[in-house]
């Protein structure tokens, strides 16, 4: 449980940091107008990496879900944490799709604001998932059902 939980927290933390730092770099004007290719590459890499981290994160969440149900038998006590995480994951997924849409359209001038908005929104939702996972960990420790390292 311990390893599993931390792995998911790490996944969401990584997504949060990847999006947050890139949004800040864009806003600080790091990318030159005459080399939009650089920004495009960064965004392309980012999408690929989020895809990987996110799909692994969702699989690990499903494992946690079943562990709480089948092994620890404490699903009813922890259900509200998982519901909150799932709703954040849904919102993250929506924002991620809209980011991918903008990049597919390849419109860096007209959709530029919406790229930054999506990056900050993914950052926020990923951070929220991590925070709730930490709360879940706290609740499990309190109930004595948390298996430490």
């Amino acid at each position, binding site marked *: 449980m311990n390893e599993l939980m*931390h792995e998911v927290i790490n996944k969401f933390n990584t997504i*949060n940091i*990847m999006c947050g*730092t*890139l949004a800040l770099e864009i806003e600080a004007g790091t990318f*030159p107008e005459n080399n939009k290719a650089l920004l495009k590459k*960064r965004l392309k890499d980012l999408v690929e990496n989020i895809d990987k981290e996110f799909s692994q994160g969702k699989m690990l969440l499903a494992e946690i879900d079943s562990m709480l149900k089948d092994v620890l038998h404490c699903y009813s006590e922890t259900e509200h944490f998982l519901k909150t995480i799932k709703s954040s994951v849904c919102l993250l997924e929506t924002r991620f799709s809209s980011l991918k849409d903008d990049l597919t359209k390849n419109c860096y001038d*007209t959709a530029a604001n919406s790229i930054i908005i999506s990056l900050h929104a993914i950052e926020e939702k990923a*951070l929220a998932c991590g925070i709730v996972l930490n709360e879940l960990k706290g609740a499990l420790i309190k109930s004595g059902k948390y298996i430490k390292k």
Partner: protein
Amino acid sequence: MGKKILIVDDEKNLTTALDSFFQSKGHDIYIANSGDSALGFLKKEKADLILLDLSMPGIDGIEVARTVKKSYPGTRLLILTAYSEEYKQKLASIEPDGIMTKPFGVLTLINKVQELLGEQVLITPQPEGAIKFKPVKILFIDSSIDYAAGYIIKDYVLPYIKLSWSRNIEVEAVSPHSSSAIHEKITHFKPDIILLSSVLSMQAKNLAKEIEQGLCKPKEVILYNMPDEEAAKESPLAAYYDMQKSLMDPDYLDRLNELIKDTALKHNLIDKTAFNREKPRLPAESIKQFTVDDIANFVKNAISEELELKGVTLKDDTSFIADLGVDSLQTIQLTMALEEVFGIELPDEDVAKLQTIGDAVNYIKEKVNLEAFTKRKKSQHKILIVDDQQGMCNFLENYFLTKGYRAMSTTSAKKAVSMAAKEKPDVILLDIRMPDMDGIDTLKEIKKQAPMSKVIMVSVASEREKDAQQAGADAFIAKPFPIAYLEEAVIKKVKELTS
């Protein structure tokens, strides 16, 4: 100067993101994906700061942390971990310089890193040719712009709204009275949100129709100051907000500001990180700092067309206003505007007494303590910011506004010369690299037009300091600079002027 930062983490995506970000801030970044390689690096190189994950293959983070604290005492150590609970006791014995539990916010991490590196937050202007992102554009269309109350919009409402957004906003105002001016403004500015004051509902309706017919394509038009609910119902626009109060009312302004924010969020123009959490601190009394001369100027602007038609030559004092009669509608509008500015309760019977502009001004003179206003005015200094980067202009203008200056800005050197001639600012912050005129030539022109103004040249091109001094610059500051340093230079120049 860049610092050496070693990032030790086996999460490749995380290290890549941090590597790129801190490199963009001018630091030298080194990555180690395991404890062994981190210690190997430290044997060869010295790091100013280590960002260290605890759970790693091989030598774990705890071991690395112990070694760092024992063998490299000059190196700051920041632990990044999801296991802070599990390693609580071990970490307490190691005493790192900071522990951040995953997940952490990006800004929290950056602030901590800056704190450990002993850095001040530097202004980093957008580099030349950076990809610029579209700001949200907000346009106020308000009849009071032509009158004395126009100061409320320009000096109070616009700065207040700008200060409550941390980025990506442009706010402008235009009067609805000149059809050509408004068409020009809308066509060039292309607002996302229009705020339409509807005291004169016919004009508002006509304008609304034109917008609907495609004059421009704002995401939303918000009506405010509707004369009555009935007029609002007839309006072809979607929204009616019962805000009959003056814009001077802080509650009213807050509600209007919230409405703008909600509209921007609703249309996905911006995300909520664009808003400052703290309410702007713009003292309400700041707009009441008027002198008798100011009143004269308000009146002059308000009736300029009539003056032209009558061929009246103005004297350089206030006496003209008492001699000049204008039609009663104009008087009432003007009086209402002055009422808003000075906050005078104006009973109906008194309105009837005010048949001329002179009557209105005399009435105001009786009701308000002009001497006090005059004193306050003297305590406030004007500062003009001239920079080709709009973001820099906005930042510095807002900064000095909050510090009590009457700040104004422009991105055009030519406009700066005319503003200096007209406004005679106490201090001018002038960028050397300007698109329409070289900064040194601009400085020479400004010194001709406003010889008393103190000019501080600001530039990344420090090799031009000598040129600037020879051309008459009062100070030179090289970019980037800490904001406190710039403010200190401004205060020094203001003191020189007043001593």
